[in-house]
């Protein structure tokens, strides 16, 4: 594997990048150390997907543009995602790596909730960030991409919810690249203290259909005891973007993390969504939809690791494969010894729309404890020609009939998604992708 070109970023570059942002020294040091580790660490090895030839090196790192604009100056595509300004609530828009728009409701401020971009967070809430950043959830030295992430992280968001605070209105972040070349090194850190709750929704978009770039994204979510986090995401990068996205959660006693992920990139993608159910009675629910089209290759992991007693995980994945796209869906429920009375359930369904597409559903149960329940179901199928005949016999065209069947196939996941905004955005992107 060629590594030479990975390191156009040297120590001087990283030091300068850090100091220009007036970062605390702990982060500057962490970056330099990570950069060094990146040189010797291997690339990740996603099961059954070869990534040797994927572009992880060609991208621009310097963030472009750094001025905030008024709401009406945001691109229309972004305004549509947010809705009306006065009803928008708390929103962060990051465009080509820099904050373009940011609003936080008075209510959140009064409650002591922090919602800010990553660069501001490390300056203003450095100690808090330091307690969680790439320590207990995602580690710097897992492989080269996590190390590169730590070395080069440039934007993202920080959400902090104090004890007993419930945030009723979803917090929204939009990460948008439209200069065709800037890479996305985004870090999202969500920390909820005991008995709090928050809903965070993010949209990733880019316009680089032709030009190559890289997204290297890490999200770390901490649900305190009795806390509840709902995390919704719609990934929709253009074809030129190679994506590594790692969204990882840790749930303390009776903590809940619910994921609703629309994995709708057009470029090659590795996506890992792992939840550590650390505390007794902790709970996670993962609902994901994905569509593969063109010749893109994708590898999805939905992983729940049970440590706590009475912990529960539910994984529901539906994928649609078109053209010559290829996707591997790995669902893993791991129940550690001592996690008695735990329950892990998973379902993976793949619908193939083309004979040349590939879709593998691999449900895996790894159980080191006797006193548990677990189950899995998986299927890979094609559109039933008799169903198609039935719909067409009512005058519906083949294209429209297929569209209905695909929607129907994804409905059990999309319909269950607890956030209306994510749901309607998903439907819209799905509509575009299956056309």
């Amino acid at each position, binding site marked *: 594997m060629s590594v030479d070109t990975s390191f156009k970023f040297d120590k001087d570059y990283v030091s300068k990048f850090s100091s220009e942002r007036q970062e605390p020294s702990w982060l500057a040091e962490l970056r330099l150390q990570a950069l060094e580790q990146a040189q010797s660490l291997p690339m990740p090895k996603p099961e059954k997907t070869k990534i040797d030839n994927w572009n992880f090196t060609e991208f621009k790192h310097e963030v472009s543009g750094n001025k905030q604009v008024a709401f009406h100056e945001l691109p229309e595509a972004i305004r549509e995602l947010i809705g009306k300004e006065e009803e928008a609530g708390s929103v962060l828009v990051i465009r080509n790596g820099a904050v373009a728009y940011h609003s936080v409701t008075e209510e959140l401020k009064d409650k002591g909730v922090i919602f800010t971009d990553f660069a501001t967070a490390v300056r203003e809430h450095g100690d808090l960030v330091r307690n969680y950043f790439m320590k207990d959830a995602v580690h710097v030295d897992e492989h080269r991409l996590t190390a590169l992430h730590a070395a080069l992280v440039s934007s993202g968001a920080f959400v902090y919810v104090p004890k007993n605070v419930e945030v009723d209105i979803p917090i929204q972040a939009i990460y948008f690249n439209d200069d065709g070349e800037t890479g996305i090194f985004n870090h999202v850190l969500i920390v909820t203290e005991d008995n709090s709750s928050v809903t965070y929704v993010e949209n990733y978009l880019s316009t680089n259909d032709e030009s190559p770039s890289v997204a290297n994204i890490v999200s770390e979510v901490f649900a305190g005891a009795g806390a509840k986090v709902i995390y919704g995401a719609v990934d929709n990068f253009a074809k030129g973007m190679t994506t590594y996205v790692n969204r990882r959660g840790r749930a303390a006693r009776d903590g809940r993390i619910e994921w609703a992920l629309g994995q709708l990139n057009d470029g090659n993608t590795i996506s890992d969504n792992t939840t550590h159910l650390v505390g007794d009675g902790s709970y996670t629910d993962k609902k994901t939809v994905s569509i593969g089209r063109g010749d893109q290759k994708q590898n999805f992991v939905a992983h729940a690791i049970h440590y706590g007693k009475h912990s529960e995980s539910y994984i529901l994945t539906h994928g649609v494969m078109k053209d010559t796209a290829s996707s591997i869906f790995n669902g893993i429920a791991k129940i550690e010894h001592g996690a008695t009375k735990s329950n892990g359930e998973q379902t993976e369904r793949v619908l193939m729309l083309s004979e040349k597409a590939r879709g593998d559903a691999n449900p895996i149960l790894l159980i080191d404890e006797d006193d548990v329940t677990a189950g899995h179901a998986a299927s890979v199928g094609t559109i*039933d*020609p*008799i*169903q198609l*005949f*039935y*719909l*067409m*016999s*009512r*005058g*519906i*065209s*083949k294209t*429209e*009939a297929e569209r*209905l*069947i695909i*929607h*129907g*196939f*994804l*409905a*059990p996941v999309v*319909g269950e998604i607890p956030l209306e905004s994510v749901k309607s955005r998903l439907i819209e992107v799905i509509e575009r992708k299956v056309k």
Partner: protein
Amino acid sequence: MSTPNLKIEDLHVAIDDKEIIKGLSFEINGGEIHAVMGPNGTGKSTLSAALMGHPKYEVTGGKAFFNGEDLLEMDVDERAKAGLFLAMQYPSEVSGITNADFLRSAINAKREEGDEISLMKFIRELDKKMEVLEMDSSFAHRYLNEGFSGGEKKRNEILQLMMLEPKIAILDEIDSGLDIDALKIVAKGVNEMRSPDFGCLIITHYQRLLNYIKPDKVHVMMQGRIVKSGGPELAERLEAEGYDWIKEELGIEDETVGQEA
């Protein structure tokens, strides 16, 4: 508008290279109701599926015209848009699509872009027709046929018939699995459609349904052909005496397809 017409000449249909329909001719016009009767396994469903364009059934010979146009050249959706309808013996279940969304897509498929049926009008029509069929309004929002009982599926086929208003409809065993009350309701739905602009081919192997929907002509099918045609009295005789007398008359030992010498 001219009177609807479906004309079949010497039709041959095969499935998996096995010939099932072996030279069948027949014609129906708007305003007429025909019954096709025959024991199980004589090719009735094969005939109806082939006319609608089912992918598994291959037409190996003969012709079919719908309002003068070559039916066999049309795609399935084009046949429907031309005004042909098939109420299926075993309707598919389609998960994730509500009955209402499906019906609206089907209605709009026949209309020009920009001339889609308004939601209000659609709901009004749907409510009215579901009332005729004594269907609970919750059926509009259930997934298409998913988990419907046999009888509910049949009613749903008739609901589609009434909403789509085709020119010629083929009802394949719409009566099977229905109790007498449901049978009357389905008959009421079909009778509401009766007009000079609507022709209907009722496929059944009981005479029961024909007590409620009076046919103009009755055809008996055996061994993949129409072996006898007549008026409503033919259906009554079949009900009273069964099919044996026809077999004797025609020297048929086994009426099913593929068993003949």
